[in-house]
């Protein structure tokens, strides 16, 4: 054991790392930025103001409590309106003019008077569980205020909220909401890595220089890459979609017990539309990979873009936290990320059951297609015959 050799190895690493500014930045800056971003997303979450539509099934007696509830919601900064019946309220949820519907039952006041807790149905869209639960928590608060002002005699009895969702089933679990969104995220992520490294190898291996000495056009290269990695993305998405949505029962054979394969996430819309959304996202990732390979000199540096480019997108694009509850500035960033539109599109299709006639889905698809076009043009621009 020679301390001198150990020391020399130690010193060489310090020298190398010191010169690799990017790795240094990654070691210190990236974790600070990422945790900072996470803190910003979590702490600065604006609980979006309640936007409720109330149905009064309790007649004149119910009107008192509905009036008090409306006052409480408005005092909290929320908006509230009344609907004649449940169908009208659900229509308001569907077209997005309200975020939560409240149905005050006929027996509300009588049950309170008897010292029982009345049950109140609250309906949320069910597309973004976090945003929905924020609405419900705020409503709960408003109800406490409303009951204590309108019916002080009721004392500590607070109505019990019975949450229902417009889309998806009441039994849907966290996975049902996350799986379709993760599908898009994984396709985006892996296609980016594959293309980025593959194209970087063209750049550093001298084959790009060689390619550009042939009469090939930049558009031909980008299109060829899109087709090639598009094929891999297709296979990946088909496998992932199958794994997520299907639940294949395998019967018992001999000593093997019966089992099922697949996550059996319910899909309300067409799996083909979900596929279309993910494919558009993956095609954008091909061009993004080509684009970012310009800024990398080694394969390691392509990997280094993951915490800088991919992880912030996962934080900001509504994969984990609803975009609507983020601070304004982060919402503005989210609106220029392709993943935001893919996430929304997948929720629209898988949970809401949207078809091509839905405006929200049309917007998502159009924006994703625009991203594909813009990224492809930018990627082409980085493939220049003039390389210094």
């Amino acid at each position: 054991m020679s301390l001198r050799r150990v020391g020399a190895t130690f010193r060489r690493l310090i020298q190398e790392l010191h010169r690799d500014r990017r790795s240094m930045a990654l070691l210190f800056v990236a974790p600070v930025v990422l945790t900072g971003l996470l803190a910003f997303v979590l702490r600065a979450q604006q609980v979006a103001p309640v936007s409720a539509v109330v149905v009064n099934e309790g007649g004149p007696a119910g009107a008192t409590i509905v009036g008090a509830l409306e006052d409480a919601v408005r005092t909290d900064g929320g908006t509230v309106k009344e609907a004649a019946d449940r169908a009208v309220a659900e229509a308001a949820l569907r077209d997005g003019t309200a975020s939560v519907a409240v149905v005050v039952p006929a027996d509300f006041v009588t049950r309170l008077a008897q010292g029982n807790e009345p049950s109140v149905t609250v309906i949320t869209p069910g597309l973004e569980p976090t945003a929905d639960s924020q609405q419900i928590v705020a409503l709960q608060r408003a109800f406490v205020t409303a009951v204590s002002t309108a019916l002080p005699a009721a004392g500590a009895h607070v109505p019990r909220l019975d949450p229902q969702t417009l889309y998806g089933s009441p039994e849907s679990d966290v996975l049902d909401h996350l799986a379709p969104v993760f599908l898009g995220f994984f396709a985006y992520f892996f296609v980016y890595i594959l293309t980025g490294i593959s194209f970087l190898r063209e750049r550093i291996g001298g084959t790009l220089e060689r390619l550009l000495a042939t009469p090939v056009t930049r558009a031909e290269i980008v299109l060829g890459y899109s087709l090639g990695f598009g094929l891999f993305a297709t296979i990946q998405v088909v496998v992932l979609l199958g794994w997520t949505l299907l639940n294949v029962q395998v019967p018992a054979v001999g000593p093997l017990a019966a089992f099922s394969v697949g996550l059996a996430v319910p899909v309300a819309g067409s799996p083909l539309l979900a596929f279309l959304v993910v494919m558009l996202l993956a095609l954008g990732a091909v061009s993004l990979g080509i684009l970012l390979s310009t800024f990398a000199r080694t394969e390691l540096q392509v990997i280094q873009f993951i915490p800088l480019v991919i992880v912030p997108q996962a934080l900001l694009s509504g994969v984990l936290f609803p975009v609507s509850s983020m601070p304004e500035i982060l919402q503005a960033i989210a609106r220029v990320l392709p993943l935001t539109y893919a996430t929304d599109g997948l929720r629209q299709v898988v949970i809401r059951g949207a078809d091509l006639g839905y405006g929200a889905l049309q917007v998502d698809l159009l924006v994703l297609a625009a991203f594909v076009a813009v990224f492809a043009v930018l990627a082409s621009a980085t493939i220049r015959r003039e390389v210094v």
Partner: protein
Amino acid sequence: MVTSAGSTLLAGMSSSAPIPAPAVEARDLRKSFGEIHAVDGVSFELTAGRIYGLLGPNGSGKTTLIRMLTGLGRPTSGEARVLGVQMPSRQNLARIGYMTQSDGIYPELTAAENTRFFAAMYGVREQGAAEAALAVVELSDRAGTLACQLSGGLRRRLSLACALVHRPPVLFLDEPTVGIDPALRAQFWAHFHDLARAGTTIVVSSHVMDEADRCDELLFMRSGRVIAQGTSQDLRTRAGTTDLEQAFLRFSVDQGPVP
């Protein structure tokens, strides 16, 4: 001068334009990267069907010059013409072969797959062009071998095959014989002479003088300038020495100290 073999070769090309003499032409070509003048006013005319040696030390501007002639770099000023067409010109690239300093082949493809890929990129339609290129560099028996499993010398040969696959009338070879053994080097030069006899204009860059005598004509480069041009014999006579390396130094002295 235009050789008859050259006309035959060109007649087979899609372009029916008359062959211009010179095959390669530089007119006061300059390329600057900021303060550095990599190529600093180069002019020459190269005749079809001859082998030209571009000789000079590392950093004398050989690669930058070749990249402008192959349209990969845009000149800061001046003009580069190949077969009468001003570069950069994408269409003209189908008539130019370029063997880069690095091998520039796909390691995960076989030798045949590499040549076939470049044949497609150059727009070669005839069947068997890829196989013919492999035959020229005597790699036919390794056609099915992955490029990453070939030895360094064989990879250079494959790289040459990829530059030849479209039978270009003009061929630029950037340090083609660096790091290969003497036997293979002799083979390479035999190929080059065969191609030149068939009318191909060849520009070979090198930083060693011992290959100079195999060229028909030499261009000495230093500090981004062509300091002398002529046959090996001619240059030695003008420099008053029998040794080409001495001749290069003699011409360098006339240019003054390296800036």
